[in-house]
């Protein structure tokens, strides 16, 4: 037992966490006694400090800091790669530095939170199936939809893209791992900490946080202690995001294989490069907004208290300066996935490769100039509205370039309409709808009417569910054979797609209508006139929920007993498919040299990369446009 507690792992994490609580208790009571604050023991104070500090003790216990601390204390550090790569399933529950293990850890943990967050959505729809009160009180209802959004944004869409890229990106650029493997492990382990903290808020006195995922002040400042779980959990999720983004940037800039110029990079790499730029610039802003809330709550700083010179609107400006770019953080990696899937399954080069890359960068730049379009009715200065409307509408241009280029990629291809391709094509149609309603929302006179209604709910689900989630499914099905070495069940994959696609639309399309007709969002009760549509929406949403169980079954069973996939089942040119499935522990036995563009389908004898020991003389073909 004592030996187990000395070793990094779950026993030590538990012991350290308990120690952490005791330290926080001592800190709180000690300071209160020293400054003669009555009562000396205050559970809220202890809880608040614990939320900030116990996660650090947990991360230390599980082993995230061992190497660094040993190095910093001047002891000899032997790196024998003992914590690199997984030899059994148990290794997935330990701190590991292999990007492939971390990728799968990310993906699995994110899906756990997807199912929990999806379950919350079912509860929301059950309550809304009919007007009046069904089975939860208003406080619980507000908590459920707040946690639904928070989990799916911070613990699912953002991290699962980081997970997919973690697995695929180093392989794609011919790198043996990420640039900072230990930082990579730390980034991952902060996620479950954040997610569990959010869920634990249900147990807090006064209920879970219930101010929405936007947590507008002063509502979030006055709310019961459950709100602190959100405020602090977001810090950990944000720190994880920033660390991963830095890791991606350094990896992409410094670790590309010989010959991998920027314009020979697959678009998924470009997409993650762009996303990481967004993350490192924008994420500190949400951290700031939440720090201000916690300082207001715990220490009476009055950032958002107008009676003492605070400014309520400032919260929204700082919050949206992150949270609008966050929309692209949740979309650009998906754009990358779609480009990979389309080129490979349509057997054609991506149409207009360079414009595809440049439009990503254009979205990054424009993404920082539009945040106040979330605030057209907030009471901010009127003049800001027109410039923000124009910049917002302009984003439709680079986004349109991407959509039209994807459609042109399909043109005259040899289209293999299998599961990843169905999700990709479904994504383009649904995302086009979400983009159109987005342009409508940018138009201030219309936005004044539909802001904060179900029209917004419809729009964000068309871009985040029909958009992001569809790309996630496309990507998971596409790289499943690479990650597991096995093939999924194609039939179940297709059933999953069609059920989700149809009932997704039945769920969210009518929300446009009831929104314009006047149903506000975030309400547990609504006027009688919306009853019929809400019943239809609720029933359809349950089918969407059930269809995800088909996905779960397919993934689990195929992972265990699916047929061998072989190294390159899609006959793709990019580097990750030129190694075994799953790849060797350090990815490549020989360093690949990149000799051409990533999507030279249809060019006879074209290859993207060659390995030092490969026999045939390569036919070097540039990405015509690209070289």
């Amino acid at each position: 037992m004592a030996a187990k507690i000395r070793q990094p792992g779950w026993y030590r994490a538990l012991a350290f966490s308990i120690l952490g609580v005791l330290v926080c208790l001592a800190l709180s009571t000690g300071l209160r006694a020293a400054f003669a604050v009555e009562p000396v023991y205050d559970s809220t104070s202890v809880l608040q400090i614990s939320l900030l500090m116990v996660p650090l003790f947990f991360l230390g216990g599980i082993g995230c800091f061992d190497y660094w601390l040993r190095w910093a204390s001047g002891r000899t550090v032997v790196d024998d790669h003992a914590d690199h790569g997984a030899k059994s399933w148990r290794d997935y529950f330990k701190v590991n530095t292999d990007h492939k293990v971390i990728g799968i850890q990310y993906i699995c943990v994110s899906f756990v939170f997807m199912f929990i967050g999806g379950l919350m959505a079912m509860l929301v729809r059950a309550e809304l199936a009919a007007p009046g009160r069904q089975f939860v009180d208003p406080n619980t209802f507000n908590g459920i939809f707040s946690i639904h959004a928070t989990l799916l944004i911070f613990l699912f869409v953002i991290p699962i893209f980081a997970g997919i890229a973690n697995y695929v990106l180093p392989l794609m650029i011919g790198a043996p791992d990420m640039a900072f493997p230990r930082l990579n492990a730390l980034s991952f382990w902060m996620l479950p900490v954040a997610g569990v903290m959010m869920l634990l808020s249900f147990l807090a006195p006064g209920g879970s946080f219930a101010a929405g995922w936007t947590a507008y002040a002063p509502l979030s400042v006055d709310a019961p202690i459950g709100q602190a779980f959100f405020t602090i959990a977001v810090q950990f999720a944000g720190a994880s995001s920033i660390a991963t983004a830095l890791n991606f940037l350094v990896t992409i800039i410094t670790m590309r294989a010989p010959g991998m110029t920027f314009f020979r990079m697959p678009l998924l790499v470009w997409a993650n490069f762009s996303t990481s730029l967004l993350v490192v610039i924008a994420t500190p802003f949400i951290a700031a907004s939440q720090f201000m809330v916690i300082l207001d709550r715990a220490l009476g700083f009055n950032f958002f208290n107008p009676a003492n010179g605070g400014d309520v609107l400032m919260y929204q400006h700082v919050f949206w300066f992150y949270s609008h770019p966050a929309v692209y953080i949740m979309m650009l990696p998906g754009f990358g996935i779609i480009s990979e899937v389309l080129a490979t399954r349509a057997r054609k080069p991506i149409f207009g490769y360079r414009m595809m890359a440049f439009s990503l960068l254009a979205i990054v730049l424009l993404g920082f100039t539009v945040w106040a379009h979330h605030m057209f009715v907030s009471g901010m200065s009127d003049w800001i509205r027109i410039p923000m409307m124009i910049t917002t509408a302009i984003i439709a241009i680079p986004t349109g370039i991407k959509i039209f280029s994807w459609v042109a990629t399909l043109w005259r291809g040899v289209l293999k309409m299998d599961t990843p391709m169905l999700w990709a094509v479904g994504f383009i149609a649904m995302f086009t709808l979400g983009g159109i309603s987005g342009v409508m929302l940018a138009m201030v006179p219309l936005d004044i009417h539909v802001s904060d209604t179900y029209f917004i709910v419809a729009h964000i689900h068309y871009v985040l569910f029909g958009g992001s989630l569809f790309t996630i499914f496309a990507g998971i099905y596409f790289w499943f054979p690479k990650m597991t070495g096995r093939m999924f069940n194609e039939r179940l994959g297709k059933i999953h797609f069609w059920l989700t696609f149809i009932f997704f639309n039945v769920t969210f399309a009518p929300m446009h209508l009831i929104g314009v007709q006047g149903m506000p969002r975030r309400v547990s009760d609504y006027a009688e006139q919306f009853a019929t549509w809400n019943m239809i929406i609720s029933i359809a949403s349950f089918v969407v929920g059930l269809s995800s169980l088909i996905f779960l079954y397919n993934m689990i069973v195929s992972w265990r007993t699916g047929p061998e996939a072989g190294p390159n089942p899609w006959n793709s040119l990019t580097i990750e498919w030129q190694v075994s499935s799953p790849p060797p522990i350090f990815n490549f036995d020989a360093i690949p040299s990149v000799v051409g563009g990533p999507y030279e389908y249809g060019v006879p004898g074209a290859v993207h990369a060659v390995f030092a020991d490969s026999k045939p003389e390569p036919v070097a073909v540039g990405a015509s446009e690209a070289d």
Partner: protein
Amino acid sequence: MLLAISVVASVVGIIFMLALDWFPEQGSSIAAPIDTFWDVLVVVSVPIFVAVTAMMLFSIWRWRQRPGEEDLDGPPIHGSTKLEVIWTIVPTVIIAALTTYAAILLVDIQSAPAKGTRVVNVNGVQFAWDFETKTAAGPVKSAKLYLPINEPVKFNVRSADVIHDFWVPAFRLKVDAVPGITTTYNLTPTKLGTFEVVCAELCGLGHAYMRQTVTVLTAERYATVMAGLAKQAGAPAPAAGASTDAVGKQMFVAGNPATGATACGACHTMKAAGTTATTGPNLDEILQADDAAGIMEMIVNPNKEIVAGYSKGIMPANYATTMTKPQLDALVKYIDQSVHGEG
């Protein structure tokens, strides 16, 4: 052929979208231009969506992999500068046109009100609106909003606690009520009738129930109503009728929907009323030592004293305005009897 199908599909799509009954009734001067703007957006949007999907469906139909084509690749087309220029410029032109239209419309609907425009102060509190109309005889307070038809009105919107949003869907009007600042909006009601006032910004527990009404009246009728409201404010409360107990119980379990008073039972457990909610403290337990005066104080001034484990600012602090004096008296009597076992 693809073009023909796209045109037909676009026309069908536009007709379908325009035929849907999207908006609530047009109750104000700004409603019609906004609804027209929506129609324009629909007419522009549908062909774009149809073009994208038609191209994709056509490609899938025409070029999906047939048996024997498993090892075939498509032609290596890398792009077309001409096409790329077209699909950059066309959306740019559309966007420029739409934003210009929207900007002109916005300037129109937010034009400054004429001097002497009637002013209504709209105050949001958790979880109700109260309205204060400035009249020659002084300000008139009401829990329902009354407006005269075809006369411009300016709203000064404020909040006493958290952010609310003052929305009348029939007016197409919406603006946040922000603590610390006054936001404004002006328009002219153009239709007689009673319309919903909705809070559109999540403001806490009772957000969904923060719904009241605005009634638009003819000028004569409006004058009468306002005079009545002004008189009522000064008059003593009428004596309670015989059905005090029934009124008290009704207030407890159903609140006063007319003014937006939230039902006590929505949040509190009280055995006699059969309510079991746990958002607020259990009244059977916490009111044992309180008399009628104490209970009244807790209802009209709920933030003064907070039961341990609960938070300030959750219970509506507006019962003094959303319930009449007789209603409050009946409610207090009912609660008093219930918790002390006399009822």
